[in-house]
């Protein structure tokens, strides 16, 4: 029997490969497209050179005071460099900054560990540590209970505060929102209605109103004479706010778990909590991961709102720096650009991770 041998592939026609047909296809496929392409090129040509000049070529890089910004036509990066410690660490004492770094490294290490460690260690070490982290961080940063020098929360600030506050809120919000989501799915009418009210309240009210509630109403709720730390109140508010959103994310995750999983768990004779924690929860977290990350990005961006109630996170540190009497040269563009770039890098990389997880989970055959 003769073996079937296909003929070698014909090369693609010459007018469809190479750079010229590509340009024709992508940039000049129709008269309107050609005009748009030329207009965009003209726009770039007029905007980009002066921008690059302002950003890098004529920019002032070295020095420590405003006087070092001699070139009027360039950005004054000296401003950002001189204030960079404040931007990242707030007014935390310089010799104690290792404590902030320790907390940040711990946060990163635990996140990596919970993905990389073998399952046994993960369940026994990484997850409990993850849930304990906010409290450990507070011990380290405050320092008075573990024999370090006490640093009042008035001095905490900068970008590290944005990161730690967002992380601490989402970590505590995890179990809380999971309970709320469970409550919303519950058969018990009273539990269900309480959960719905909680979730819808924290989702429906502007987060700023919640912050104001935290700062003007919460003190009224505590017994007379109790003085609750400002940062602690903010943490409570952010956690509850985040829980409302996450509960809805989890609800979506619950709905996506096939009913057969519940029935299989029931038929094995597992109790409610065994079923929920061992069978359902892992699947819910896996399904909701992209949305959890998206919610976290929102929370992270919203930590800048703390400026309004006078907490020195990164943006309000920038505002303070801009009104400092030694730096009244109108450096707002530089300052805002720097903060924007820092936030952008963090949020963009998180949304990249989220969409890569989404693509991994997506098994539909689109296009």
């Amino acid at each position, binding site marked *: 029997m003769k073996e079937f041998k296909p003929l070698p592939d014909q090369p693609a026609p010459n007018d469809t490969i190479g750079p010229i047909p590509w340009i024709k296809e992508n940039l000049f496929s129709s008269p309107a497209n050609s005009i748009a392409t030329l207009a965009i090129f003209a726009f770039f040509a007029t905007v980009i050179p002066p921008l690059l000049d302002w950003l890098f070529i004529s920019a002032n890089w070295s020095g420590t005071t405003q006087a070092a910004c001699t070139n009027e036509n360039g950005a004054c990066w000296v401003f950002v460099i001189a204030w960079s410690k404040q931007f990242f660490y707030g007014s935390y004492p310089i010799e104690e900054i290792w404590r902030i770094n320790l907390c940040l490294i711990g946060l990163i290490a635990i996140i990596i560990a919970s993905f990389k460690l073998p399952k046994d260690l993960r369940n026994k070490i990484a997850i409990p540590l993850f849930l304990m982290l906010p409290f450990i961080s507070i011990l380290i940063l405050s320092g008075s209970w573990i024999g370090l020098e006490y640093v009042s929360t008035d001095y905490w600030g900068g970008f590290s505060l944005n990161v730690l506050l967002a992380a601490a809120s989402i970590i505590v919000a995890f179990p809380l929102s999971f309970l709320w989501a469970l409550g919303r799915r519950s058969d*018990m009418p009273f539990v269900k209605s309480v959960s719905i009210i909680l979730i819808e309240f924290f989702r429906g009210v502007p987060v*700023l109103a919640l912050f104001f509630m935290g700062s003007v109403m919460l003190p009224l709720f505590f017994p007379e004479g109790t003085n609750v730390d400002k940062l602690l109140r903010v943490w409570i508010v952010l956690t509850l706010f985040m829980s409302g959103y996450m509960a809805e994310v989890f609800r979506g995750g619950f709905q996506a778990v096939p009913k057969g999983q519940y029935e299989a768990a029931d038929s094995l004779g597992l109790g409610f909590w065994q079923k929920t924690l061992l069978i359902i929860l892992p699947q819910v977290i896996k399904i909701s991961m992209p949305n959890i990350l998206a919610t976290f990005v929102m929370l992270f961006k919203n930590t800048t709102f703390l400026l309004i109630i006078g907490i020195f996170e990164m943006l309000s540190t920038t505002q303070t720096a801009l009104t400092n009497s030694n730096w009244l040269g109108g450096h707002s563009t530089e300052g805002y650009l720097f903060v924007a770039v820092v*936030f952008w890098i963090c949020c963009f990389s998180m949304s990249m991770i989220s969409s890569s997880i989404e693509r991994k989970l997506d098994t539909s055959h689109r296009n």
Partner: protein
Amino acid sequence: MSEKPQVKSSPSFFNNPRNRSLIYQLLLLVGLAYFFYGIVSNTLANMEARGIKSGYDFLFTTAGFDILMSLIPYDATHTYGRTFVVGLLNTILVSTIGIILSTIVGFIMGVAHFSHNLLIRKLAVAYIETFRNIPLLLQIFFWYFAVLAALPSARQSMSIGEAIFLNVRGLYFPGLIAESGAGIVYGAIAAAIAGIFFLRRWAKKRQNDTGQQFPVFTASLGILFGLPLIALLVSGIPFVWDFPELKGFNFRGGVTVIPELMALALALTVYTGAFIAEAVRAGIQAVPHGQTEAARSIGLKESKIMKLIVVPQAMRVIVPLLNSEYQSLVKNSTLATAIGYPDLFTVFVGTTLNQTGQAIEIVFMTMAVYFVINMSISFVMNRFNASVELAERN
């Protein structure tokens, strides 16, 4: 084979799911009751200690502070109740501007993502990814302190045809002042809108019955502009232009858009527009490619494919997302307080709360307002959603 007598196995009291759920709910009820009892008694004690009188009487006392911008007549002699209305109207104003503009920007950028031109595609992606990932408050500050504050002073203002002026104090453009007889024109506009509504219904019915198409869009445009125009001519043009004029150091007359409003509306538009663009992109992507191919194979033009086949199907994904974006826009408009735009939050929770100290009443009222606004948005969008939803066979 003899049947075994059935063993009646009743679970013990605590293992009965019904008893269990009752006990759990009772526990929750007791816990919540104790919690609220604690809060209420603490609050009452605290308020007594601070000498705060609860109640809504403060709404009828004189406010005594000025508000930067008001859509209704207001000065310092009006009551706190009126500051609430002024703030509420300003909130609604900026939210409406934001919702309309961000929808336009979002749809343009979302559709641009599917352009045949590579540069346009990349620009749309760059827009979405840049502005979605930068905190909104930062963007507001950028527009307010870096861009608008750098505009020229009133005497050197930028102008278009001596009618529209832009300077550091705001944007000025001519306003219309109605004179007697304007009622006819307003009536004509209302009649035009009603006419278009009935025309569309009639045209749709005719197309369903006979298959004949009617140029609804052109006819609607004709009615919308024609009727008021005729009314204008009939009533002898009962409007006069009110041009802004430089008097002393500032402009008088015309319509003024204060920089706070401009910065807030710009930032909300750009930020929410990026999210809406992303929603539109996701919606269009969710339409299976086969739909486009099928449309092409029955000979529809490229422009008609987008309008008749892809967008209506994409709307099923887009509308629920739009709903939540609009709601977050309204909630985000509270950031006005950071730059001093007098929205409900700045005026009421800011100044009024500071002056009266009625924390609970004011925060409660404000939250209720945002709830109501968001509920109404949700209601409208759900109605809209029902009209775009997949019509399945009954």
